[in-house]
């Protein structure tokens, strides 16, 4: 995916100016910056919630103008939001296939339960996620397991670009590591990933590239070997 000269204005507020990012297949890009820097605005443009005021988006070699989140999803751009990923009172397999249920023929749309349970178990196993049962309610699972499931689901349904908004915000260190392993697994399968994270120490462990925003301006774009944790920390917290 290539973003060139992306700008976004909300009335008189210039939320983004001149953002240029290229994301390669399977690359993990960290989007970093202080509150109000424009991170959320940028991913909302990429996931089809906002149209950019100016600029060009090229996805899979073709220029795209997204009009809605569902258009983005149809292209393979999946976004996992912190709190909106799963329905706690539904079982795992029902969550996994929510909105994309496999059903038998006929107007009743009878769920093909066994098939979905197996596919869910298999898809999670492929990601290295072992769970007790796909019949467990998601509300009984830990935060890390939930995040893992949400990411695995996005990957399973053909994501080419996966956007994760604060995926480790409420997780323990151990759970964060599990989520990172899954993110790496997804990227090995050729899926590009955009990570929004506040914890620079953590994100430095996984990301291949760092895009630093400050008040809507892209003040840095480095690959991992072009920079150090200290350098990007300086950039984000540094006074301008």
């Amino acid at each position: 995916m290539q973003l060139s000269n992306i700008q976004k204005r909300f009335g008189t507020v210039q939320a983004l100016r001149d953002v240029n990012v290229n994301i390669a297949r399977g690359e993990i890009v960290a989007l970093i910056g202080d509150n109000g820097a424009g991170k959320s605005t940028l991913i909302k443009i990429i996931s089809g919630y906002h149209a950019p005021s100016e600029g060009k988006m090229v996805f899979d070699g073709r220029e795209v103008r997204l009009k809605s989140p569902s258009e983005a999803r149809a292209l393979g751009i999946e976004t996992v939001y912190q709190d909106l990923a799963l329905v706690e009172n539904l079982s795992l397999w029902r969550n996994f296939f929510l909105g994309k249920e496999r059903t038998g023929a006929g107007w009743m749309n009878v769920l093909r339960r066994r098939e979905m349970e197996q596919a869910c178990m298999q898809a999670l196993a492929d990601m290295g996620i072992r769970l007790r049962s796909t019949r467990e309610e998601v509300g009984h699972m830990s935060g890390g397991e939930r995040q893992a499931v949400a990411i695995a689901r996005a990957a399973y349904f053909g994501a080419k670009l996966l956007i994760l908004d604060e995926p480790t915000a409420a997780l323990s260190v151990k759970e964060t590591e599990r989520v990172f392993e899954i993110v790496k697994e997804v990227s090995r399968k050729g899926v590009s990933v955009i990570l929004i994270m506040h914890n620079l120490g953590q994100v430095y462990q996984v990301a291949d590239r760092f895009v630093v925003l400050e008040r809507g301006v892209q003040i840095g774009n480095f690959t991992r070997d072009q920079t150090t944790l200290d350098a990007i920390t300086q950039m984000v917290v540094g006074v301008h």
Partner: protein
Amino acid sequence: MTGKIQLQTLSGPKGLRWSRTLFSVKELGVIGGIVLAAVIFTVLNPQFLSMTEAASIITSAAEIGIIAIGITILMISGEFDLSVGSIYALCPTIWAYLFVQQHWNIWLSLVCALIPAALTGLANGLIVTRFHVNSFIVTLGTQMWWRGIVLVATGGYPISYFGSSKLMHVMGGEVVGGLHFTAVWFVVAAVLGWFVLNKTKFGNWCFASGGKPDAARAMGIPVTRVKVVNFCISALLAGLVGCMDLARLNSVSPAQGQGLELTVIVAAVIGGTALAGGIGSVVGSCLGALLMGMITSGLILMGAPSYWYTSFVGIILIIAVMFNVRVSKISKSRSA
């Protein structure tokens, strides 16, 4: 492959596994209530276990139960319906007016009588979802509106019909020994409701829409449509049960069904349906309706003034919900 192995290792000692299974039965509270009510009423009057009694319990349970099934599906998808009591009076009134007083075809009259129910459900649903007015308020409004209309239109007088008709027979006639066709329709509605909720895509969408509407929307579920459809189902079932009652009793009173909306919500809640949406079961609500039927019949049998019913149900509601909250906590902590 690994799933099975891990499941076994987690189950732990036999006793614990057994008790966890027991506590994970959502309908445990209402089953306990039914057993308790049966014991108490039988001790007070052994007559309670007779066939006549059973038939009368099932008859009142059937009418509460069918409406409760609609309410349950609606509550699972996150909304309430207080208009069912009035619709339960409205539809049979229209039906009787058309075929008794206007001599219309009885089938056509029934269809025409149910149209206002469907439209009320549609209006309830659209106002709730489009104008973001709480469903308590909207359906309280439609409840009052229709009650007033029905009372004005009939002048407060009941309409009766003592002729015979095949349609009326299959809707509310006697099957055998005091058992009415309403019981058959109760079973049909229960099986259908259970199937739709647990085995179909729509059922999945209902639980998701009530459990976490924003997440459901993010996954592409048409939450608004799900809710509107369920408002219609709820209203239609209430209208249909009203008509069954006319078929059974040969008479419809414009005042009938006052307080019925609360009775059916109580039946659903006793059966484990959550007020906040996302949780509930048709089986639980049917058992809840059965318990309400038992209380009605038991109190009549004891010769207690019918006002006792209200007090009794109030206490049972509170106990049942306390119990359900407790049980769901136990089952959660055990399986976590």
